[in-house]
């Protein structure tokens, strides 16, 4: 690259600086603030539009309904910041659920089953991680493969059966509220894990390393960061979290099925991207992701309250995903056009100075 092209005052805003390294919307408003504002707007609109919406019972239900997505989104945030992705999470959730059913049917104790399926989830993540880090395969492709593989295993384990009738004291743990509050146990757990994730991502050396890996893996490696080790750990965490989400899901519905959680990975990724994490890695905040998760949850809840068909819910999720990827890029293009010093060839001259 021609260094000079980047660095002389002639190539744009160099001496004033700043804009180039921030989020594409940085000039106007931070993306995660925008999403939070949108969240509040949706909440107010929901409260105005439906009397069933803004009461503790419904909100508590909405939050509980969001539990699995939220848990998986935490691990997914770390992965996407490091420019990787795990699409197999919903299948790991399904496999976990199927194993719970099969083992419960076989007379195992829940106390044995839960740790076991969580370990299996970790192994599923380890397989993803090894394929990505040892063989250098792209995680998008690897985890599409294991998405099918793990779901297939779930059917092998449990077939088309549904296993129910779990002991009340376990289902209570998942559906019940923390005593004295309207907060379901999974939400309390989520809050705890979110704080840990937030600290790791934003206030530890490991978090700094994730951003470096996500924006320029080679430079991170040259700085002595154990890129492969870190990625491997992330995939294991993701698998573990997905399996644990499977436990929560199964107990919450009181039903173990191989097709549990089908398609949840899309909601998770939509929430993460909506939260402002760049799919190319290196940018994002956990606060944004939490706002994104809540926004998706509220929208789903509103659609449900208004008896909107699940197909439409799926359409909304898909659109949100596309919008959240597209908007920052459109904003970047708009910004480039404004900044460009040569109005007659805005894009080419900008491309030139960015070489």
């Amino acid at each position, binding site marked *: 690259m021609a260094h000079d092209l980047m660095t002389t005052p002639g190539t744009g*805003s160099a001496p*004033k600086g*700043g804009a180039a*390294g921030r989020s594409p919307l940085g000039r106007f408003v931070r993306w995660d603030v925008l999403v939070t504002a949108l969240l509040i707007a949706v909440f107010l609109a929901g409260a105005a539009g439906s009397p069933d919406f803004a009461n503790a019972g419904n909100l508590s239900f909405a939050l509980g309904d969001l539990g699995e997505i939220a848990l998986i989104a935490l691990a997914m945030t770390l992965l996407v910041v490091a420019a990787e992705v795990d699409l197999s999470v919903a299948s790991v959730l399904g496999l976990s659920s199927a194993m719970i059913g099969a083992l419960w049917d076989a007379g195992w104790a829940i106390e044995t089953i839960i740790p076991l399926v969580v370990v299996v989830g970790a192994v599923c993540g380890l397989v993803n991680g090894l394929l990505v880090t040892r063989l250098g395969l792209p995680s998008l492709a690897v985890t599409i493969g294991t998405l099918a593989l793990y779901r297939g295993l779930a059917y092998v384990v449990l077939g088309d059966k549904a296993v129910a009738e779990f002991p009340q004291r376990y289902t209570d743990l998942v559906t019940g509220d923390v005593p004295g509050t309207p907060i379901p146990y999974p939400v309390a757990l989520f809050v705890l894990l979110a704080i840990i994730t937030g600290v790791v991502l934003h206030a530890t*050396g490991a978090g700094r390393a994730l951003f470096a890996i996500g924006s320029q893996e080679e430079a991170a490696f040259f700085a002595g960061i154990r890129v492969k080790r870190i990625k491997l750990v992330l995939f294991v965490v993701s698998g573990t979290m997905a399996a644990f989400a499977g436990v929560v899901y199964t107990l919450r519905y009181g039903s173990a099925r191989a097709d549990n959680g089908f398609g949840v990975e899309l909601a998770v990724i939509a929430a993460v991207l909506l939260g402002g994490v760049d799919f190319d890695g*290196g940018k994002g905040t956990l606060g944004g992701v939490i706002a994104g998760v809540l926004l998706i949850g509220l929208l789903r809840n509103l659609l449900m309250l208004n008896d909107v068909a699940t197909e439409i819910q799926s359409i909304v999720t898909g659109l949100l995903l596309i919008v959240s990827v597209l908007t920052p890029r459109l904003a970047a293009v708009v910004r480039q056009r404004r900044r460009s010093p*040569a109005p007659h060839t805005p894009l080419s*001259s900008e491309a030139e100075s960015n070489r």
Partner: protein
Amino acid sequence: MRDPGEAEAPRGPAPGTAPPPVLALRKAGKSFGAVRALREVSLELFAGEAHALAGENGAGKSTLVKTLSGVHRPDEGEVLLDGAPVEFGGPAAAQEAGVAVIYQEPTLFPDLSVAENIFMGRQPRARFGRIDRRAMHAEATELFTGLGVAIDPGRPARGLSIADQQLVEIAKALSRRARVLIMDEPTAALSGNEVARLFNVVKTLREQGCAVLFISHRLDEIFELCQRVTILRDGAWVAGEPISALTPDDLVRRMVGRDLDTLYPKQDTLPGEVALTVGRLTREGVFTDVSFEVRRGEIVALAGLVGAGRSEVARAIFGVDRWDAGTVEVGGRRLPPGSPTAAMAAGLALVPEDRRQQGLVMDLSIERNIGLTGLKSVRRGPVISRAAERDRARDWAARLQLKFTRLGDAVNVLSGGNQQKVVLAKWLATDPAVLIVDEPTRGIDIGTKAEVHRLLSELAGRGIAILMISSDLPEVLGMADRVLVMHEGRLAAEIPRERATEESVMSAATGRDGAAA
């Protein structure tokens, strides 16, 4: 007072006649927002001359090039083509008028043939609009013959050396009947032989009546190749005169605006104990049986042609690449192969060759980049103290005299020299025992270059062992206590400072033996 009408008294290389300059800039100014990138800059390019454009990074060279090549339109002043004012509507219009820019690293279509690259978009046509490949090849061959180089027009562009890619770009420019060739740091990534070949091509172009505007940070190249020089400083025109009227020191003084004490401020130090021992290091097909030591306080240069395996040795020592045989010891501790983390822990640091890919995470802030190698000193438990992190970065920025606006700015807004300082800061923060620097001053302006040299000398004075890879021969001779020369993957010679000369290093680097004797 002299007559201001410069066109009436051309100082071009065509005495007797007075043709107007092919391309000229008259009192041109260009601003971006509040920043005046160019102020009243004038420049004249005559047919048959090689004209140097000199100035530090940020002096406005690139803006000037972009103004000449139609990317920018000047806010003030004008561009003159054959003496008449023109307004290029864009790069395409400038190309049409015969102005071509050859970049340091050309961007060819790798899967197309050389000839197809040359004639992209203007392929000669045969019947029914088919592309006439035979004519295309014949014309390409003719162009290369005219330049005195041998490149097969039928081969794909993929795999061409950067030097060859530049020649393809030159051929492309000539096929468009370019009369002005602007070469923006063409030699930065070339080896000695390739530079010599490029210079021959430029001489041929001059004889054919082209005007060449040549940009380089290497002063010796400017003096060897060019007849006149225009010097910019902080966007303003400083001087425009025949090279023969200047000494290298004059040129530097005009570029920097002050006297530069010395470009190579090497302190004498007494070498201490051995810090780095490399024993019979081998990586199959890349380098073989490389053994040497670097002592504390010593600067050892690793010289050789590009491709001799110097950077590869450095990468292996630091663990970025694995080695197949041999040993690396730092302070008596053996390193495992292939682990930068272990190398770092042992006290090694590597300032890599490719600053923008390997040295820095370009999108991250100055502060985050400095913190990349670890933040142990600013942690309470596992949690980083933001304030301490910032203070630490500010402290390093101050120690290295980094020029920046905010620590939170992404490093990609910094100049090359300041970027290199961030890389150095990042590694010095680890308090290394051995510092490996790979091309530490490539693409860096001369003022910062002197600063980097002074810093390296100081570090050696404080007992750090320094291994310096450099293709810049004056830098090698000026800075090194010892010179190790590599040739085709092997250590060809070890030359102490007293006996190191351009001849002794080059003859070892090119495999003409005798230097070691």
